C-alpha cells in the first residue's frame, strides 16, 4: 500500500548559498545512490526523487515543503540544512504527518522541545559537535579554555554546551570574546585569546567566520605558540577550503570521514565519481537516512507514515555510515562520532587526505541523553 | 599671424548645413563664411537656429550634413573632441561654469591647443572682476562674473576662432559695456569671433558683418557700415 503508487522523496536544501557545498547537489546524489541500491523500487512502487533550493530562507523552505506535501504527494523530506528552515519544515511535517530526515541541521531543538514523531535527526547535532569536542580534548589533558564565539543564539549555545562539559570534567574557562556574525577580521579577537594563555581556543562559530578565524590564527602563529585550536562546528568542506597549510593541527568532531574503512572508501569513491568530490557527513547522512527509510518502508510493506516511523525506530541502522546505529524515541539517530586532527601538509598523501582520527567517541557519549532532551515524546 | 586686417581667404566656411535634433530638422541649408580677424554676428529671433549653428560647428549637434570647413579642414565626420583642438573655442549660451571646480580650475580647464594664447595675468587685466576670486567655487560667482569667466577660459587656449553665444544675456548694462570692451580688445589682438546676439545695438558696436537667420535659414547678410541703411529691414527680421 504505497500512496499514489510512488515513494516520493524531496531533497530540500541550500543549492546556491552558504550550505551549498556541504549539502546542495551532493545530498541529492547521495539520496539517489540510496534509491539505486533498491533498484529504484520499494514495496512494489517506484521511487522518485525531487529536489529544491530553499535559498536559506525559512519561508521558502516552509512554502516549498507545504506545496510538496499538499500538491505533489511528497512522502518524505530529506536534508534541510539551516536550523530556521528545518524548524519550519519540522512544524509542517509534524502537522501533515510526513517523514522528515534531517541530516543538514544541527539545532538540538529538533530532537528536543521541537521534536516530532516523524522527524529524524541523522548525521550530527550541535551538542555532539561541541560537547564531543570538549570532552575529547579534556581527556587529552587540555583543561583551560578560551572561546571565540559568534554573538548570536547558535554561537552562544555552542559555547554553553562546551563550557558545561569542560566544567563538569574539572576544566576551567579563562574567558570568551563575542564577535558579531559575519566578521571578516579576527585578529583582535585572536590576540585577546592568545593573551589569555588558555590551552585551547574554542571557536564557537561556523562557516566563513570559522574559516577566517582559523586562517588568521595561522597567520598570527597561534598554534605554533603551543595553544590548540578547536573548532566546535566544522565540516570537511571547510578544511578543504582552508587548505592544510592554514588548518593544520586544528581539532574538531566529525560524524563521518571517507577514509575510515573499506566500506566508506568504496562508497565515497562512487560518490566522488558522480559529485567530483568526497562526501561530507551531511551528504553521507542523507544516504544513510534515505536508505534506512526505504528499509523501513519495505519492512512495513507500505509508506504509511506512522508505520514507517515505528519501523525506523525499531530497526537498527546498519550501513557504511553508521555501524550499529539506532534511533531513539526523540528521533535522534545514535552513532559513533570521531575526534579528528587536521594533518600537516607533509603528512597528507593526496587530495582529501585531511584527517588523523584521534579518537572514536561512542554514540552514548557523543549525544545528549534523550531523557534530558526535553522532547515530549520521551516518556 | 594676427594680421588684424581682412584677408580674402575664409577661415570658416559653412555651406548648405543641415542639422537635426532627433527627428526635428532645425537647420535647412545654412551657408556663411568668416574671414580671418573678423567679428561676425548671427542675429535672429528666439529659436531661429543661431545656437544650433554653433553647436553644429562644434559637433555637439552630431546629426548634421553639408560642409563645415575650418582652415580648409572638413569638420563634419571628425571626432567631436578633435574639433576644438584645431583652434576653435566655444562659449556656450548657458555659460557652463563648473560648480565642482573653483574659479582657477575653471579658468585653466580647457587644454591649450595652440601657441599664442593669453596668459592668466593678461586675462585678469581684461576681466579685473575675476582677480582674487581664484578659490571661489565657480558657480558662486554672479551671472556676469560667470560670463566673464566663460570667455576668459577660452582665451588661454590659443584658439583663434571664438564662438560666443549671447554673451550679454541677463547682464546689467554696465557689464554689457565691459564685455563689449573685451570683445573689441580681442578683435584688436587678432582673434576671429562669431557672435550670436539678440541685442543688435550691442552687436553693431563691435561687428564687421551681420548674418540674419530665420527658421533655420540665413536670410540676409548686412555689413556693419550699411546697418543704418538697412535698419527697417532689420527691424522687420527681428520683430523689434
Amino acid at each position, binding site marked *: 500500500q504505497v500512496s499514489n503508487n510512488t515513494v516520493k522523496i524531496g531533497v530540500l536544501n541550500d543549492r546556491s548559498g552558504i550550505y551549498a557545498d556541504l549539502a546542495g547537489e551532493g545530498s541529492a546524489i547521495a539520496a539517489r545512490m540510496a534509491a539505486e541500491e533498491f533498484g529504484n523500487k520499494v514495496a512494489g512502487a517506484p521511487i522518485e526523487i525531487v529536489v529544491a533550493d530553499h535559498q536559506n530562507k525559512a519561508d521558502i523552505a516552509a512554502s516549498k515543503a507545504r506545496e510538496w506535501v499538499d500538491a505533489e504527494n511528497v512522502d518524505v523530506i530529506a536534508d534541510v540544512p539551516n536550523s530556521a528552515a528545518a524548524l519550519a519544515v519540522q512544524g509542517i511535517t509534524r502537522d501533515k504527518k510526513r517523514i522528515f530526515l534531517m541530516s543538514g541541521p544541527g539545532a538540538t531543538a529538533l530532537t528536543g522541545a521541537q521534536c516530532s514523531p516523524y522527524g529524524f535527526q541523522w548525521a550530527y547535532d550541535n551538542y555532539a559537535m561541541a560537547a564531543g569536542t570538549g570532552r575529547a580534548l579534556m581527556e587529552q589533558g587540555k583543561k583551560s579554555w578560551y572561546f571565540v564565539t559568534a554573538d548570536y543564539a547558535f554561537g552562544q549555545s555552542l559555547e554553553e554546551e562546551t563550557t558545561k562539559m569542560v566544567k563538569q570534567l574539572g576544566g576551567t574557562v579563562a574567558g570568551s570574546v563575542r564577535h558579531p556574525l559575519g566578521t571578516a577580521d579576527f585578529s583582535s579577537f585572536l590576540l585577546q585569546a592568545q593573551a589569555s594563555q588558555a590551552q585551547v581556543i574554542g571557536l564557537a562559530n561556523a562557516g566563513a567566520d570559522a574559516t577566517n578565524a582559523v586562517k588568521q590564527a595561522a597567520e598570527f602563529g597561534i598554534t605554533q605558540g603551543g595553544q590548540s585550536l578547536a573548532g566546535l562546528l566544522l565540516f570537511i568542506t571547510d578544511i578543504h577550503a582552508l587548505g592544510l597549510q592554514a588548518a593544520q593541527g586544528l581539532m574538531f568532531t566529525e560524524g563521518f570521514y571517507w577514509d575510515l574503512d573499506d566500506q566508506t572508501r568504496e562508497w565515497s569513491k562512487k560518490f566522488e565519481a558522480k559529485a567530483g568530490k568526497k562526501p561530507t557527513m551531511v551528504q553521507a547522512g542523507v544516504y544513510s537516512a534515505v536508505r534506512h527509510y526505504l528499509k523501513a518502508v519495505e519492512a512495513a510493506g507500505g509508506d504509511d507514515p506512522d508505520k514507517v516511523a515505528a519501523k525506523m525506530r525499531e530497526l537498527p541502522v546498519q550501513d557504511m555510515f553508521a555501524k550499529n546505529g539506532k534511533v531513539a524515541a526523540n528521533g535522534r539517530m545514535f552513532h559513533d562520532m570521531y575526534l579528528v586532527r587536521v594533518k600537516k601538509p607533509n603528512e597528507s598523501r593526496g587530495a582529501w587526505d585531511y584527517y588523523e582520527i584521534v579518537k572514536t567517541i561512542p554514540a552514548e557519549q557523543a549525544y545528549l541523553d534523550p531523557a534530558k532532551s526535553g522532547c515530549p515524546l520521551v516518556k | 599671424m594676427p594680421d588684424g586686417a581682412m584677408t580674402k581667404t575664409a577661415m570658416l566656411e559653412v555651406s548648405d548645413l543641415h542639422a537635426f535634433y532627433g527627428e526635428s530638422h532645425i537647420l535647412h541649408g545654412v551657408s556663411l563664411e568668416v574671414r580671418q580677424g573678423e567679428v561676425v554676428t548671427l542675429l535672429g529671433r*528666439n529659436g531661429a537656429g543661431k545656437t544650433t549653428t554653433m553647436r553644429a560647428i562644434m559637433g555637439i549637434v552630431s546629426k548634421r550634413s553639408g560642409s563645415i570647413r575650418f582652415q580648409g579642414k572638413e569638420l563634419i565626420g571628425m571626432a567631436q573632441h578633435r574639433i576644438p583642438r584645431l583652434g576653435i573655442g566655444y562659449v556656450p549660451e548657458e555659460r557652463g561654469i563648473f560648480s565642482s571646480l573653483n574659479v582657477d580650475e575653471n579658468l585653466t580647464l580647457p587644454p591649450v591647443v595652440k601657441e599664442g594664447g593669453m596668459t592668466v595675468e593678461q586675462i585678469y587685466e581684461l576681466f579685473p*572682476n575675476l582677480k582674487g576670486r581664484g578659490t*571661489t567655487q565657480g558657480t558662486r560667482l554672479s551671472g*556676469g562674473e560667470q560670463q566673464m569667466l566663460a570667455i576668459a577660459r577660452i582665451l588661454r587656449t590659443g584658439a583663434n576662432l571664438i564662438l560666443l553665444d549671447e554673451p550679454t544675456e541677463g*547682464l546689467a548694462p*554696465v557689464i554689457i*559695456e565691459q564685455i563689449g570692451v573685451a570683445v573689441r580688445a580681442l578683435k584688436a589682438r587678432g582673434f576671429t569671433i562669431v557672435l550670436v546676439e539678440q541685442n543688435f545695438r550691442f552687436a553693431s558696436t563691435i561687428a564687421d558683418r551681420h548674418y540674419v537667420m530665420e527658421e533655420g535659414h540665413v536670410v540676409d547678410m548686412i555689413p556693419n557700415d550699411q546697418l543704418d541703411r538697412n535698419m527697417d529691414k532689420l527691424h522687420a527680421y527681428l520683430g523689434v
Partner: protein
Amino acid sequence: MTDDIILEARGLSKEFKGFVAVKEVDLQVRRGTIHALIGPNGAGKSTVFNLLTKFLTPTSGQILYKGRDITRARPADIARMGLVRSFQISAVFPHLTVLENVRVALQRPLGTSFHFWKSESSLHALHDRAVELIEAVNLTPWSGHLAAELPYGRKRALEIATTLALDPEVMLLDEPLAGMGHEDIERTAQLIKRVAADRTVLMVEHNLSVVAHLSDTITVLRRGEILAEGPYEVVSKNAQVMEAYMGTGHA
C-alpha cells in the same frame, strides 16, 4: 512711522567662505509700495532675497517683518506669515498641470494637507479661485497642460499666479520678467502693478524701463552694499549709479 514699514533688514550681512556678498545692508520696505532692488550682476540681490526669505542664514544682522523678529524663523514659516517669494530660475512643479500647480498653493490654508485619508475631490472647491488666477495671468488655454509643456515665459507667468494664490502680504519677485517675450513683459508688468494695489512688492529686475514704470522706491546695490536709494528720478541721476549700473548709454 515704523508701523508703516512692513519688512526691514538691519545690518544684514552674508559671508561665503571669506567672501562678503552682502555687507551691512539696511533696507526698509514700506507697506503698499513696489520696491525694486537693482544693481550689477553679483551685487548680492539674489542673496538679499535668500536672506530675507531665510533660504540662506545671515552671518549677522536682523530681519523684521511687521515688527516681529524673523531672523530665526524657518523658510516655510515665513511663507506662512505672508512673505512669499518667487525664484530667479523658474520654479514650477513640472509634472503637475497648470491648475494643480496653482491649487497646491491654494490648498495649504484648508488645513487638510496632512489628510492622507481624504479624497482629492475635497480640493475641487478651490478650482474656481484657481481658474480666476490662471485667467489673470492669461494662461486659461493652458490650464489642463502639464507645466513642463509650457514655454519659458508662460512658466514665469504660472509662477506668479502660484505666488498670488497664497494671497501674500509681501511678494518678493526675483527677475519676474526675465525670459519673457515683449507682449508678455507688458502684460506681466501690468499684472504686477495690479496685484500690488493691495499688497507690498519687493522685486529684483534688470529691465530698467519696467522698473522705472512700476516702482515707488529703488534701492541700488553694488558689491553687497547700498549705493543709492530713492525714486527712479532721483536714483537715475545719481552719478555713482550711472557709473556702476546703468552705464553711459542709458542716461
